């Protein structure tokens, strides 16, 4: 184990090379032949199709069924937690190195199927190829990173030692972790939360988003193939009631959740209740919403700011918690910025995720499209639409599928909900501010604090924003999405989350309990 090479990120596909692109179509065709995938509930060693089922479909062509999944019940949740509770001590006892080997095995399983998995994301979540591939790589990164970090953590921390006593601080697993994951990073996010829990010796029950059960199935297959015992990783495809059952279960110690703020708050409330027979406080690791702002100072290089803002706002149709939602631009350059961003958005192509020429894929489902369209109407009412993309090429959006045009709105009334609420879709607003200080005041008043951006060149301005920003991830003079494991530990503050940083050096601490042991080494005046 000590000879493990240092962590490095799994390289994404070099899609700028034709030879690399050439393999994509075949991978997609091969996956299409296997659809729809059957996704069972996997409760310990038991694999069951369930008494009821549900389907996931291609957001770009909703008649295409991607997976038919067992619809797990509250009873299934209780059973899975019970199995996990029994399995946890054994999984903890084998030690961090053995657990790390299993996670590395899972990483290898994913690595051997990179194109196939990316193709599945293209279909199930309409994640465009570069993003889908990036998601698979990030899942591999989480496994590799946490495996190493857990081995290091097992050694404990150094304490002050005085004659006659031996002090040690160790980190021990908490028990059972319920992982409740979203669909927008259908492998990486469930993988990150699950891998952190497993690496530190917890047993996991995973409840993936109902939109992406097939991707979650692949993750569980990878973990089990790598050597994680079935009892330590259960899969419960299903809806909110299964997640709620897990959250309320007295056998669950930690809830790792990534999703919306309302659901997150519900979880925090529920986790605070101590059920009869429960002998621990539940801990919540939550990654919630964002309303991410990019500040553009008067000395910004617009040649760089415009493309970075456009891609931060519209890649994957804005369906990333890190996506740019609001631009706060110094009034001195606001007209130029608005004109250039608008022009850049007008040429964006809305289309299928499977086409490399697509800039903006469909949103995940009909309800999402309705929500985005609702905010677009609100933006039109409260301000003005300066650009609507995706209609230039052939005069319309694709027929079937949940396509929304990318929209830029400017000069919205200060009280517009569009400026406060998370749209989670391809809608960007631009506001003029007096200067960077005024932009910082806007930030001060925001409930969310996930990611933020700054385009500026004056070192004093960069210093000021770095010190005053409330966000968990500030990006200076670059796009604000695409955090890399080990490089940009990711997570928000305020109502954006519990301040945990996925892919960073502190993340595992949320899945363990510290235990200090002090032994008296003096016996009748003799130090042994």
């Amino acid at each position, binding site marked *: 184990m000590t000879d493990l090479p240092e962590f490095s990120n799994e390289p994404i596909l070099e899609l*700028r090379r*034709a030879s690399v692109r050439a393999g994509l179509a075949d991978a997609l065709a091969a996956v299409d032949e296997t659809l729809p995938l059957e996704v069972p509930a996997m409760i310990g060693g038991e694999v069951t199709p369930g008494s009821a089922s549900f389907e996931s479909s291609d957001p770009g062509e909703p008649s295409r069924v991607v997976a038919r999944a067992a619809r797990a019940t509250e009873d299934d949740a209780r059973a899975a937690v019970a199995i996990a509770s029994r399995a946890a001590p054994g999984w903890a006892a084998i030690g961090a190195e053995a657990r790390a080997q299993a996670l590395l095995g899972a990483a290898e399983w994913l690595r051997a199927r990179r194109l196939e998995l990316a193709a599945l994301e293209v279909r199930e979540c309409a994640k465009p190829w570069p993003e889908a591939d990036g998601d698979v790589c990030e899942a591999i990164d989480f496994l590799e990173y946490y495996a190493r970090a857990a081995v290091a953590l097992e050694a404990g921390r150094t304490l002050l030692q005085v004659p006659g006593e031996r002090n040690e601080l160790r980190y021990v697993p908490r028990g059972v972790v319920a992982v409740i994951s979203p669909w927008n990073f259908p492998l990486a996010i469930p993988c990150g939360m699950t891998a952190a829990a497993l690496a530190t010796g917890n047993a996991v029950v995973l409840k993936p988003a109902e939109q992406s059960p097939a991707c979650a199935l692949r993750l569980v297959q990878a973990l089990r193939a790598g050597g994680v015992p079935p009892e330590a990783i259960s899969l419960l495809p299903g809806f909110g009631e299964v997640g709620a059952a897990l959250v309320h279960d007295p056998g669950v110690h930690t809830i790792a959740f990534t999703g919306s703020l309302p659901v997150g708050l519900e979880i925090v409330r529920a986790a605070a209740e101590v059920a009869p027979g429960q002998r621990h406080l539940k801990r919540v690791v939550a990654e919630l919403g964002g309303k991410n702002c990019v500040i553009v100072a008067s000395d910004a*290089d617009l*040649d*760089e700011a415009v493309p970075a803002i456009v891609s931060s706002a519209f890649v994957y149709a804005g369906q990333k918690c890190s996506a740019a939602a609001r631009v706060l631009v110094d009034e*001195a350059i606001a007209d130029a910025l608005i004109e250039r961003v608008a022009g850049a958005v007008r040429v964006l192509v809305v289309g299928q995720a499977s*086409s490399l020429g697509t800039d903006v894929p469909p949103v995940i489902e009909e309800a999402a499209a309705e929500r985005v369209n609702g905010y677009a109407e609100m933006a039109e009412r409260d301000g003005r639409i300066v650009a609507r993309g995706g209609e230039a090429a052939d005069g319309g959006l694709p027929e079937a599928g949940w396509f929304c045009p990318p929209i830029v709105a400017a000069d919205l009334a200060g009280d517009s909900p569009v400026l406060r609420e998370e749209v989670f879709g391809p809608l960007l607003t631009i506001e003029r501010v007096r200067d960077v200080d005024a932009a910082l005041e806007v930030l001060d008043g925001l409930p969310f604090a996930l990611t933020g951006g700054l385009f500026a060149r004056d*070192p004093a301005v960069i210093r000021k924003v770095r010190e005053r920003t409330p966000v968990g991830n500030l990006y200076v003079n670059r796009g604000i999405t695409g955090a890399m494991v080990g490089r940009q530990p990711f997570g928000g503050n305020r109502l954006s989350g519990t301040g945990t940083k996925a892919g960073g050096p502190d993340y595992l601490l949320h899945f363990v309990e510290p235990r200090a042991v002090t032994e008296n080494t003096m016996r009748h005046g003799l130090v042994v």
Partner: protein
Amino acid sequence: MSTVQDSTEQEVRRIGAELADAFPSAGHSPMRALDSRAMELAARDRELKAALFRFVDVVPACRSLDDLARHLTGFLEEVPETPPSLAAAMRIAHTRPGRAALGAAAAGGVKHMAHRFIVGESPAAALEVLRGLWKRGVASTVDLLGEATVTEAEADNYARRCTEALEEIAREAARWPERPVLERDSAGRLPRANVSVKVSALTPLLRPDAPERGRDDAACRLRPLLRRARELDAHIHIDMESLDSREAVLELVLGLLREDEFREGPSAGLVLQAYLRDSPEQLTTILEWARSCPRTPPVQIRLVKGAYWDHELVEARQHGWPTPVFEVKADCDRNFEALTRRLVHARELVRVAIGSHNLRSVAHAIAVSRQAGGSDQDLELQVLRGLGDELQDALAASGLRVRTYCPVGDLVAGMAYLVRRLLENTSNDSFLHEQATGTPLEELLAAP
């Protein structure tokens, strides 16, 4: 070493020494000497170099003299050891009148440096320089600097500027005196008016993962430009940029020039970047294309080292990709010479231009060209304005055809270009840097 290689090496040394003798004497211009000292200072201290570059980069975005001075001192404060002259400048900046004076001086300095590399704010303003070069036996190609193209309107505007530049230069060039060395090679006449075009400026749709989008959109603007060039008897050269756009650019150029209407003009060219490890395969592709669709005049291939080395290296490292460029200078130089040899022997298919400031590479190209039995008129040498001025004069004095790449545009537009040139000029293993710091001629001309 075989006798052929032996005699090549002798020739390279002889030609190199002749060219070195023909260099204008150093320091003939006091302003030029000042620049060299500034460059030298920057090359020695990485932090200082970074600070100065960041300042140069932000100058166009500064709104006042006060703003300029604040940026300058802001960058200099981050340099651990500020040279005494600059420390004095920072003290001045504590008062508002001091900042105004410092801002004015700094802006003036940057503008002066910019003028060394940029021949004019507009094609009209550049005509005088172009005419002056021509009279001294130096041909030119004009590159229109501009902001990045992110919208359709910006792409249209760039195409319009290119058309206007073609027209203005062609009109002016018709009045230039005859310069047979610059106007003819074995394949025929060479246009006097010559414009270099960037595909990234011709379309907002360049996507590394989907090259066909940028290629097709740029084609819509390049086609009228080629037609106009043919009417005006002007040359269009398509520049090569970073690897992200190479596929789009190559497919665009080879595709358009294969179209029936362009089989007999205009004169056109493309670029081969020797720092790319796969440049030999690229050349094979280009030569096979040239063989499969002969055109008159033949396409010109400009062989260069490549100007995006740092960018390519950083991008590859950040993504964990294999480095697409040679990381060792000698490997790159050797590849440059191998490509030179192949090009020189493919002159029945293509016109050859060697773009380099490396005296060794240039002398080598001349030597292998002559050894291949070619006439000097079938080898064009190209240099960059402001960086290759001495070499340009030496080549012209030696009766060789030299073409100078002349950027045109305002300071705002030019700054990104300028910063790249400065980086190149002060990089520690650049030929110019070695030459400026007094590396003996024998070493400069040694085989890589």
